[in-house]
């Protein structure tokens, strides 16, 4: 990916090289985890394992970001239009599994139940609309952004502005959750105050994506995807195996939810629980007038 701008580089050779890079990378990551596991056995404190993991991955993304720096407009906005479908899918997948879905989604589902699934369906089903209505035409059109496309297709600045406003509105709601996640992670990593952590994290993102644009973002996202998918799967596979004896969490977590529902109903009738709830209600009532 560092010498990706070389002209006359065929797509097939490019894809082969990408596969090689990321295979080595995945091997390196697994090796790193094994080294950490050995270090843990030798008595490395958990805190330092957490720091080592965060530092190594952030460093890695930063290196990819700096290596992918580019001044070419097509490279900057659309990664040269030659990211193989599989890798682009991985990058998009990493976008999906972001701080917003990992932190925000778990909470929303816990709070809203079935209604919360609207978010899951919305931001997955939305890809269908993108695939059917926008992506193929945007690619054939040869410009860079959706407002560009709307401007050329319908003419004038009004459709363009509407597209722009929609993009900003969607990004804003998404970015709020995202930046909150960045703040939490930076705070944990460096120990600075949350407000400072947000800006430190943002500065890091700016450096990485500003230098390389879409090119840097895509290649770091692919790298993140590999780590994310491993990190997401291991705990749920272990839990599924422990609770049901089947290491396929997707097939068994419905039964777990049924158990949880039963336990919840039991808990709601439990006299001790009712007692605790009464105490909290009393406290809340007492706090009411002053607050």
């Amino acid at each position, binding site marked *: 990916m560092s010498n990706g701008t070389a002209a006359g580089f065929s797509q097939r050779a490019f894809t082969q090289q990408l596969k090689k890079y990321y295979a080595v990378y995945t091997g390196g990551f697994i090796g790193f985890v094994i080294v950490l596991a050995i270090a843990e056995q030798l008595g490395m404190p958990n805190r330092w394992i957490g720091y080592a993991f965060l530092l190594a991955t952030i460093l890695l993304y930063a290196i990819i970001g700096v290596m992918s720096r580019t001044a070419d407009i097509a490279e900057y906005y659309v990664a040269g239009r030659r990211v193989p479908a599989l890798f682009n899918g991985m990058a998009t997948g990493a976008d999906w599994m972001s701080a917003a879905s990992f932190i925000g989604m778990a909470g929303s589902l816990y709070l809203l139940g079935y209604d919360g*699934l*609207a978010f899951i369906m919305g931001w997955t089903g939305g*890809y269908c609309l993108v*695939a059917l209505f926008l992506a193929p035409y945007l690619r054939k059109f040869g410009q860079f952004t959706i407002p560009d496309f709307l401007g050329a297709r319908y003419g004038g600045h009004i459709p363009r502005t509407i597209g722009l406003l929609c993009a900003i509105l969607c990004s804003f709601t998404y970015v709020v959750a995202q930046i909150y996640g960045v703040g939490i992670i930076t705070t944990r990593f460096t120990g600075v105050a949350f407000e400072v952590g947000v800006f430190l994290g943002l500065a890091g993102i700016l450096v990485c994506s500003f230098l390389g644009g879409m090119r840097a973002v895509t290649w770091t996202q692919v790298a993140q995807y590999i780590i994310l998918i491993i990190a997401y799967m291991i705990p749920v596979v272990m839990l599924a195996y422990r609770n049901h004896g089947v290491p396929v969490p*997707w097939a068994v977590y*419905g039964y777990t939810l049924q158990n949880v529902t039963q336990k919840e109903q039991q808990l709601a009738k439990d006299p001790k629980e009712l007692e605790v709830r009464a105490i909290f209600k009393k406290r809340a009532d007492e706090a009411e007038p002053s607050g």
Partner: protein
Amino acid sequence: MQLTERHKEYWRKNLTITVILLFIWFVITFVIGYYARELHEVTILGFPFAFYMGAQGSLILYVVIIGFYAWYMNRQDRIYGVHEGDEQ
């Protein structure tokens, strides 16, 4: 560029497949959501049916829709000679 009969045929096929896939998309997204309560009695893998569709089923079908559209249009692109480069 002058649009030939073949180009129009290609576009018609594109529109047809888009409408069909969009209809399937609409059914799994909104119709099942609308009848969630009525479908509550049916369970699949321990989930009520509508919940299952929201959590897994519809997502799998979305991926199938996108995958099928990409595969189908790549094939049409090649048949009608409007594909790009040496792209697979």
